[in-house]
């Protein structure tokens, strides 16, 4: 059970990073950490004690498979996370080129 709670703790670590860090790149890393914590939780949910990989092999009568659906979901989430991270980094680089800084306290033209 402790493992599941550690996933939530990891999620909160990422959230803490997003909220408190001032550096654009560190904010991106915080979002990545949150995403990986969810992936970890998904894999843990799909785990069955003493389960084997869910591949049907001819001649084997194994039925105690781990749940394959969370694994498919994790792959999809990784793909989506790749798109999000690439997009965030692309914007971060462009922000750096326009503003000359990674500090979000100095990037605040928009307000009100």
């Amino acid at each position, binding site marked *: 059970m402790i493992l599941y709670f550690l996933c939530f703790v990891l999620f909160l670590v990422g959230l803490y990073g997003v909220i408190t860090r001032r550096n654009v790149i560190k904010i991106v890393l915080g979002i990545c950490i949150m995403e990986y914590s969810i992936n970890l939780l998904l894999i843990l949910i799909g785990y069955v004690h003493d389960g084997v*990989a869910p*591949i*049907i*092999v*001819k001649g084997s009568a194994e039925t105690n498979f781990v749940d394959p659906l969370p694994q498919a979901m994790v*792959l999809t989430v*990784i*793909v989506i996370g*790749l798109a999000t991270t*690439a997009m965030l*980094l*692309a914007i971060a*680089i462009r922000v750096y*080129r326009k503003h000359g800084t990674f500090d979000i306290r100095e990037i605040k033209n928009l307000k009100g």
Partner: protein
Amino acid sequence: MTGMTNIVKTVTRIIGGVVFLFGLYIVTHGHLSPGGGFAGGTIIAGAFILLVLAYGDNIMHLRRIKEESSALENIAIFCILIMAAVGFLLGTKVFFNNFLPIGTAGQLISAGIIPLFNILIGIEVAAALFTIFLAFVIFKEEEK
């Protein structure tokens, strides 16, 4: 962008092809073992990224490669849609209909259209990742 030292170049020359072949193996055996289009595609993209990092290239050439890989990516996705539409037209009006013979499980050529989709997804993922990498590289080169 400049390349790296001779040691890196030599090691890359030896490893690059092996990595590429391993990616192809993962893609083509996607319906038999863990892996498949996405995992294999990232490995293939890794082989190309390794080559660019080790040997370097001038920016005009990189731009042209990026255009080409971007077009390849779009074409791969388009082929997936066309194959799905073929499944729609043949038979039961369902997209992604598996219209090819299933074959026997465990054989390399089996499972109908799933290996074809794996190969197309492999091309798509490899091209997309390589495009993203090249976009960042070109962006950095322009700054100089």
